[in-house]
Structure formats: C-alpha cells, structure tokens
C-alpha cells in the first residue's frame, strides 16, 4: 500500500515537471510581456532594461532551471501584472475557488444522486422524462450562458441575488471564507449553481444508468426473493454498487470543476484562481500562469490518488488487486 502511494506521488511529481516544461515552452508563443508593463513611449533601451531585470533575456533552459529550482523552494516569482508574489496571490485566491467548487460539488452530488435514483426507478414516469430532458439541457448549455441567464433572472429581474463578486469575507488567518456572512452566502448561490449544473446532470444520468443495470441483475432479484424490504434492496444493495463509477467520475470531475471554474469565475467576477489565470493570459503574466498550471497538475494528481484509495474503501476487490498488482 505504502509503495503504491509512494509510486503515485513520484508519478505526480513527474507530471508536474512535464507540465511546467510544456507550459514554459508555450509561453514563448504568447507574446512579449514587456509591452504590457512599460509606458507606450518607453524607449528600446528602457524595454531592454526591464527584460534584463526580469531575466527574460536568459536562454530558455536557464530560465526553466531557475523557475524549477525556485519553485521547489516554494518561490513562484512575482506577478508581472500586479507586482505581488505569486505564492501569496494564489494562496489568497485558492479559498475562493475551493469554496465555490466545494459547494458546486455538494449540490451536484446531493441533488444529482437522488434524481438519478428516482429517474432510475420510475423510468417511464412523466416527471422522470421531464427531469431527464432538463439534464440534457444542463449538459448542453455552455457554462457562460447558464451564468448569464441566471444573472438575468435572479439579479436583474427578481433582484434577489448579487450579480458579481464574493460578498463580504471573513479572514481566518490563512483562509478567507464567505460562508460566515449573509452576503458571502448569497454571493455563492448563482456561481455554484452555474458550476454545478453540468456535473449535476452528469451524475443524474450516471446513477440512473447504474441503477437500471443493477436493478436487473440476479442478486437484486434474489434479494427481493428473500423478502428484504424495498428500501434495503435499493439503498443497501443497488445504490451502493452503482457508486463505484460515480466515485471515479466525481473524483475526476472535481479537477474539471476547478478547471471549468475559470469560466464561471469570469462571468461572476469571482475572485478565485480561474479569474487570476485568465487575466494572467491577457497580460502575458508568465509567473502566474506557470504556477497555476503546476498547481492544477498537482490537484489532479492528488485527486486521482484519493480516488484510488477510496476505491479500496468501497470495493474490497480493488484493494486486493491494486496492492497485489502495483505493490509487486
């Protein structure tokens, strides 16, 4: 088990190194950040000076080596746009994104699973068909459009919820939270629904498909034949066995949620990492982009590891297999 975890951590490290390298190579195609940093009538000499100061005139391998050696020490440089340390910037934005993703994932799970079970059980019902139709809309609507429609309805027409921002946040030392204030909670509603909608629809459909398959299997028929109460059959046996694919999906999708958050955050001016990243692209703010991409790679690595470990908890067969297989 321990060997398995160690191996996965080493793999994650390798992935991050690769991501950093590819990202760094790509930065040479997004243009010169100097133009955004100096005055429009700065002379060529002044521009050269800034370039030297930032180390942008070093050859690529040297720049990359500096970046990696600094990053290993936890130093991601200074943002070209805001002149603030990247580490501090990301630490400041991470809570906003993670809170948003946490609420969105919760909504997706807590609403999506019951809907999936319901539509699986009453698959010919009118309500089920209506719900399935709606999930199709949820899957096919692009996130930015969902966000704008929600703003139109709930901010503009009804005036219930704010159209942008995170509301008042409470600073808890290293973590700033919007959960503790009324305006912070209200501000969470629209962005988290926007972000959750796609996942919610996906989970509904996954659970439904799983339920349909499991309900037709022999052991369910056998359980019913034993006279077990319906509730126990459905939730104790059927649902539990549909959870493995749902888990995989949710795990991987949490990574995707963080990635999708870029769009949701831009629509709602949510001060998270996604917004930071998008603005960094516009400004050719290389240190921020590099740090963000590496952090995303790290998150995916950690999530995948967690999912692998959770498999074992839900399905003992996987545990035996993986420790036997990977441990050798």
């Amino acid at each position: 088990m321990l060997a398995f975890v160690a191996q996965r951590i080493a793999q994650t490290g390798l992935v991050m190194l690769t991501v950093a390298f590819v990202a760094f190579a790509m930065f040479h195609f997004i243009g010169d950040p100097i133009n955004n940093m100096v005055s429009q009538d700065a002379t060529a000499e002044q521009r050269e000076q800034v370039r030297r100061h930032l180390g942008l005139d070093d050859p690529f391998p040297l720049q990359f080596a500096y970046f990696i050696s600094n990053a290993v020490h936890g130093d991601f440089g200074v943002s070209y746009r805001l002149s603030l340390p990247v580490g501090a910037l990301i630490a400041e934005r991470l809570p906003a994104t993670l809170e948003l993703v946490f609420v969105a994932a919760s909504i997706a799970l807590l609403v999506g699973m019951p809907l999936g079970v319901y539509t699986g059980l009453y698959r010919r019902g009118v309500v089920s068909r209506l719900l399935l139709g709606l999930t199709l809309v949820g899957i096919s609507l692009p996130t930015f459009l969902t966000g704008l429609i929600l703003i139109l309805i709930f901010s503009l027409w009804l005036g219930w919820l704010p159209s942008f921002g995170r509301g008042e946040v409470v600073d808890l030392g290293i973590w700033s939270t919007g959960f503790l204030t009324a305006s912070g909670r209200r501000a969470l509603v629209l962005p988290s629904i926007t972000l959750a909608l796609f996942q919610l629809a996906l989970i509904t459909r996954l659970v439904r498909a799983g339920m349909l398959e499991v309900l037709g299997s022999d052991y369910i028929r056998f359980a019913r034949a034993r006279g077990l109460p319906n509730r126990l059959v459905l939730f104790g046996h059927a649902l539990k066995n549909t959870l493995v694919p749902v888990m995989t999906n949710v795990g991987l999708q949490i990574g995707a949620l963080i990635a999708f958050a870029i769009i949701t955050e831009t629509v709602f001016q949510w001060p998270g990492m996604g917004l930071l990243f998008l603005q960094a692209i516009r400004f050719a703010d290389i240190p921020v982009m590099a740090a963000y991409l590496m952090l995303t790679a790290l998150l995916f690595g950690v999530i995948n590891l967690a999912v692998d470990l959770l498999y074992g908890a839900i399905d003992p067969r996987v545990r035996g297999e993986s420790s036997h297989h990977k441990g050798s």
Partner: protein
Amino acid sequence: MAIVLLLVNLLAAFLASSATAEIFRYSTTGDILGLDPHTNNEGTTNAMKMNIYEGLLHRAWDLSLHPALATQWQQVEPTRWRFNLRQGVKFHNGNTFDADDVLVSFDRIRSSQSDMSYAVGTVSSINKIDAYTIELVTTVPDPTLLLALPAFLIMDQQWLEQNEAMQPVRGTMAGNFANTHANGTGPFRLVERQADTRTVLEPNADWWGEPRHNITKAIFQPIANDATRVAALLTGEMDLIYPVPLQDIDRINRTDHVRTLEGPELRTIFLGFDQWRDESLDMPGSGRNPFKDVRVRRAVYHAIDEQAIARVVMRGAARPAGLMIAPGINGYPGEPMDQRLPYDPAMAKRLLAEAGYPDGFPVTFDCPTDRYVKDEAICTAIVSMLQRVGIRVIPNFQTKTLYFDKISIKGGNRTSFFLLGWTPNTFDVFNTLQNVMTMHPEGHGIFNCGRYSNPEVEQLTVQIQRETDPQKRDALVREAFRIHQEDVGHIPLHQQYLAWGMADTVAEIKQRPFNDVDLRYVVMRSGTAAAAQTSSGGDRKP
C-alpha cells in the same frame, strides 16, 4: 421611557447617516496595476493614483491646468522655471509637505524602473530655493513643460525612507511597499485594497482644496465580463460602469434609472504602411513595395469609407478624423485641416492603375483583437473595402500582446499594413510627431511601425520641440501635418467615443476625454445611495 428615547436617538442617527452616506461604486474591465505613482503608466491606474496623489499642477476634467501643490510659477529664464509651493499641506499620514518631498519625488520618477519619467521629460534638475520655493531647470527651452507636469506626482520623503521605498521597484518583493500602500496629499485616501476585488477610498478631511464632489466613500470593483458589468449597473449594484459595450448603449438609455454618457476620446485610430522595405513582405521575389508609392497610399485612403465605419461598425460612437491628433491636444491644427480625403473607389482604382497595379496586389493586414473599441470589426470592414478596389488583403488578427510583438521595433516592424491607435500622454502634439510620425533624430519613431520618414517633417518636429512662441509653433505644426497629409504618411480613421453607463444615483459627473474617473468630479444625488443599497441587496458594507 429611557428605552424609547434611546430608540428615537438611534433612529435619528440612522436616518442622519443614511442621508449623508454618499457611497459611489464604480467598475471597469480590469483592476488597477498598483498604487505606486511612478510606475504602471496605464489609464485606469493613473486615474486612481491621481485621486490619492497630487502633482504641482492639476489637469481639470476639461484639460485646463490649475495650481495644486504649486500655487504660482514663472519662467524666469528660457530654461529655468520657479515654482512657489503650497504651504500647510499635509500628507494622509500627517506629515507636512515641502520642497524636499518634490526633490525626492523627482529623483524617484527619473530612476531606471520608473514608467512616468515622461512627466519631467526635459527637466534636468530641481533646485531648492527655500522650503516652499523650487526651481526647475530644463535641458532645452521647453514650451510644453507644464502640459506633462500634472503626471509628476509627489510622495512623502519621510514615508519613503521609513518604508524603504525610495526607488520604484518592478517585479521584486523588496521595496515594493509603495505599490501596495499609498500616502499622498490628494482629496482621497486609501482605506482598503484587495487586488482584483476592491479598492476603497474615503475623502481626505484635511485636503487643502474645496471639494466639488459630495461622496463619502468610493468603492472600485473591476468586472471583466461585459455582460456582468452591464447587469451590475442595471441591478443597482454599481453607480457607474465603463466602458459600456456599444451594443448595450441603446438598451441602457431605454431603461428608466440608468443612462449613458458619451464623448470623444483623445486617442486617434489610424492605419500605417511599410514605407521602408524595398520589397514588400507579402510579395517576395517581386522586388517591389507598392506602399512606397504615394499614389498607392492615396488609393487606399480613397477606398476607405470612414463614414460607414463610424456609422455601422462604431454605431455612431466615433468621430471621423483627418488628422493624427484629436481636438483638445495642444497644437491641434484646427477643423479646416481635420478633413478626410473623400471616399471614392473609382479614384482609388485609377490611382492603383497609374502606379502600375491595375490588378491590385497582395498584402497582410495586422490587426489587434483586444486593444481598441471594435478593432477586429473595423479591420474586417476595411478588408472588404480594399478588396473592392482590387487590393487582396489578408487580415492577420492577433491578441494585442502578439500583435505588438510583430509590429514593434523590437520585432523588426514585421508588418506591411497595420491598424494602431495613439494618445499623446503629454497632451501635446510633439509626442505624436516624435513617436508615430518621425524616425529621426535618435529615439524617435517608437511606434512609427511603417517607418514613415520625411526629412522636412523631422526638421519641423525638432523645431516644434523648441519653439516657445505659441503662434510660430502652431504654424510649424500646421506645416508638418500638411506635409504628412500630402504624403499620406498614415491614414487617420477616427477618435472612438467613450461610453459610460450611469445610474440615477449619480447627479453629475464630468467626463474627461479619456477612459477613467476622476473622483473629484463625482456628485451623487443626495439620499439615493442608501435607497439603492436596500433595493439592490448587493454585497456592500452597511
């Protein structure tokens, strides 16, 4: 009884506070880049700096110059100016302002990492006569010294020393204090700043001047997404937003409690041509560069229907231009010269045939997609207009970062034909002549990307820089622009309009001809801010 009295008192206090709390909330596309008054020469950032800091002079909303930290000035010799400083002025931290602060600020703004040195471009030294008198010495007699001087913002010597911020610093943590904190003498002081989220200012109660505004608090919150920004205005979460996307102007004006405020900007949008390569980048092996022939440049001019661009693409929010500078810039040669060549495709075809290109020629058109209002749509319109006269234009749309890389000097001006905009940030014609319309002497032509170079214009530009007699200077400017027009050195297109969206909570705001807000000129309608607060339910502090 006592409880009732207390309640009545509380109620009275609440009513009083809500009646006088004029909170002004405004938004634009991006955050300010920082608070250091001597770095980050960018529109929104500069405006914010000038809410907090002051220069020796203040440039009012109508571009007129007024005393600020200097009360009087006099040109004692052609190259020496004497300034009397205002006495009794305090920085926001309570320190007293005097001549030493000006001297330290001068060293700071001229240091290698400063972006704002243009504000003191020709000043070689500043001498202290006494605590409230200084003398500026210029390298050459500079008729436009005062025009750029409002951007020379004064910092507190003691504050800089205490916080080790004597030099502006870009990109490193050490000594970056002045970029995240602020201490000026201006009418507003910084209360709170969260990068990309909110910047909060409150009036400086000890300001020396008589405030024109009536706001008690200003909250600046950037909103990147156009639709969200407009929604925030319509819901009452914002009192003012800019820019309003052109397609939303009608809608805002049809809505009851909001309206737009429009006016021309100082930036001129224009086209430029490669006039220095012997062989066009797009015609390898031909040995020809059509744009070296003035008839071809003239043909392009005649082929462009700017009225249509202004009407259709810009939806009327543009002022067609015949000159490379806007009215309001010092030295503007006047309306009679500000005329465009007529739209005449037949003439364009004739000129092309005369020049030896009856069937046109191929050319790549470099165009940014995120720099100017409707830049991409303007270019698309121009492409089809030029194709109509036979010029085979292939547009090359890129984001501004890549676009500037390609057309800039550093990139070797790798362009044959491009769209660009220029605002002289000194408010003087010389800036445009120097950076856009000449190549010589050394240091000129930083954004003369097609390298238009006419020795006569360059000679005149040198004279314009030094001529102190305004009438003689204006005549020189007219002559330089006349030659440039005859050469068709560039094709001016238009000045784009500013479009701001405003809620009824704002009684009046003076719009300067550039896209940023000077809080000195914001007047709120009394009592409405509190009402808007309850109805919007936005995320505001009570």
